[in-house]
C-alpha cells in the first residue's frame, strides 16, 4: 500500500519558518561577534577593576596581560594571528555544539533536518547520529566536565573582581556566572550523572534530590542556553568598552 498522494511539502499555514530563521540569525550574529572578539586579541582585561571577560578566561599564554592570567601562563605566545581564547574555545564550543538543546536548534535551523515539525526535509538520505561525525555527539558529557571546570574559573574571576570595590561590571560578571552555572547545571548529561542513570532512586535519596532539582532547571534548558549565550556576549562587550576607555564603569563603592 502507498501513502496518501499529497504533493505539498507541508500544509502548515502558520509561520513555521520563523523559529528556525530566528535561531539561524541569532546563532550567526553571535558567532560573528565571538569570532571578531576572539581574533581581536585586546580589550579583555580592565586593570583598574580586575574585570576579565569570560571569553579570555583563563588566559594561559605569555601574550596575556600578566595580571589577567589568574592561573599562570602555561603556554608560550601563540604564533601569528592566533590568540589565547583559541585554547579554551574548543571546549566551550564543544559543550554548546553537543548540547541536546543546541542540537535541536541547529539541526532544524541550519540543516533543515527537519526545518519544522511536519515540514519535509530536503535531504534524500538520513542516518541521524548513527555514524561519524554525528556519533561524536555522544561525547557531550566530556565537554560538560570541561565546561564545569571553566565555569569554576569564571566564578573565581567574578569573585576576585570584588577586591577592587563594587561597580556595574561586578554585577554583570556575577549575573553572567549565575546564568552560566544555571545552564551548565541544567544540562541533560548533568541530570543523568547526578541521578538519572539510577534504576532505584529510593536507594540513593541524595542523588534523587539532586536529580529532582536539576530536572526543574532542565525544564528551562532552552531559555538558559540562550540567556547565558547572549549574556556572555553582553558581558564581553561591557568589559571591552570599559577596557578600551569607550565608557567608564559605573562605580557604587570605590
Amino acid at each position, binding site marked *: *500500500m*502507498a*501513502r*496518501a*498522494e*499529497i504533493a*505539498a511539502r*507541508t*500544509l*502548515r*499555514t*502558520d509561520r513555521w519558518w520563523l523559529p528556525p530563521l530566528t535561531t539561524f540569525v541569532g546563532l550567526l550574529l553571535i558567532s560573528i561577534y565571538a569570532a571578531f572578539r576572539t581574533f581581536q586579541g585586546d580589550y579583555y582585561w580592565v586593570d583598574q577593576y580586575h574585570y576579565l571577560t569570560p571569553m579570555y578566561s583563563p588566559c594561559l599564554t605569555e601574550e596575556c596581560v600578566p595580571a589577567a592570567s589568574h592561573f599562570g601562563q602555561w603556554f608560550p605566545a601563540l604564533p601569528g594571528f592566533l590568540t589565547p581564547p583559541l585554547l579554551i574555545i574548543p571546549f566551550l564550543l564543544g559543550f554548546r555544539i553537543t548540547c*541536546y538543546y543546541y*542540537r*535541536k536548534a541547529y*539541526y*532544524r535551523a541550519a540543516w533543515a*533536518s*527537519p526545518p519544522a*515539525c*511536519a*515540514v*519535509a*526535509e530536503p*535531504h534524500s*538520505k*538520513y*542516518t*541521524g*547520529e*548513527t555514524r561519524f561525525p*554525528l*556519533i561524536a555527539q*555522544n*561525547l*557531550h*558529557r566530556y565537554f560538560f566536565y570541561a565546561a564545569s571546570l571553566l565555569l569554576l574559573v569564571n566564578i573565581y574571576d567574578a569573585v576576585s573582581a570584588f577586591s577592587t570595590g563594587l561597580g556595574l561590571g561586578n554585577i554583570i560578571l556575577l549575573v553572567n556566572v549565575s546564568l552560566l552555572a544555571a545552564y551548565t547545571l541544567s544540562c*541533560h*548529561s548533568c541530570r*543523568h550523572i547526578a541521578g*538519572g*542513570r539510577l*534504576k*532505584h*532512586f*529510593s536507594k540513593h535519596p541524595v542523588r*534523587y534530590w539532586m536529580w529532582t532539582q536539576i530536572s526543574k532547571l*532542565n*525544564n528551562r534548558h532552552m531559555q538558559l542556553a540562550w540567556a547565558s549565550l547572549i549574556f556572555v556576549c553582553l558581558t564581553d562587550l561591557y568589559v571591552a568598552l570599559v577596557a578600551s576607555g569607550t565608557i567608564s564603569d559605573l562605580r557604587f563603592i570605590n
Partner: protein
Amino acid sequence: MSYQGKFRVWRGDDSGGALEDFTVEVNEGEVVLDIIHRLQATQAPDLAVRWNCKAGKCGSCSAEINGRPRLLCMTRMSVFQESETITVTPMRTFPIIRDLVTDVSFNYTKAREVPSFAPPKDLAPGEYRMQQVDVERSQEFRKCIECFLCQNTCHVVRDHEENKEAFSGPRFLMRVAELEMHPLDTADRVDQAQDDHGLGYCNITKCCSEVCPEHIHITDNALIPMKERVADRKYDPVVWLGNKLFRRS
C-alpha cells in the same frame, strides 16, 4: 453562534486522491471531529474516518489539520478564524486505506519487537514491591494513548520510508525507556535501544514531544536519558573503567 466553515478534506485511497472542498456548518463548542461527522451525515456519507471515544483517550482519530498532526476530537474549532479554510488530511507516514484512515500496522510490528516486561525469575505475580519514586518515571510514559502522532511526525520515518526497518520511532523507544527505568525489569534494554530500535537515528528535534496530546516529555524524559545510558555503555571509557574497578554490572 453558527457559521458556514470552509474545509478541504483529502479523499482517495492508495490508487490516488485529492483535496476536496466542502462548506459545512460549524456551531459553538464544536471540535473538528464534529465537523467531519456532519460532513459524513450531510454531504459525503462514504467519507472514511477512524474514531472512537471523542475524549482524547482512545488515540483513534489522529490526522493532520492544517498540516499539523493532531487528534480530530481534541482540536477545537474556536482556535480557527471563521474565514479560514481548514485542511484535513490523513497521517502522512503510514499507508493510506481510504480518505482519513491509514494503516498503522507498522506500529504494531514495532510493538511486538520490544521484549516484554521481565521481572526477576524468583518473584511471583503478587509479590511485586516497589517504591513510588522508583516507578514514577515509567508511569509518565504509561499515559501514552497510542495515537501514533509522534510516529507520524518523526521525520526519521516521515521523510525516509527506508528507515522504517531500522527505526522503531519515539513511541517504542519510549516503551524501551519505560521498561529500562522500571525498578523490577531485569532485561538489558540499552543495547536493544541502540542496535535493534535505532535510537541513534533520533536527532532530538523534539517534534514527538510537540505533538503528543498527553504532553509526555518524550524527548527529555525518555529518549535523551536512553541516549545517555547508551553513552554510558558504548561511548564512555570512564564509566566502563568504573564498572570494571567497582565490579558494577
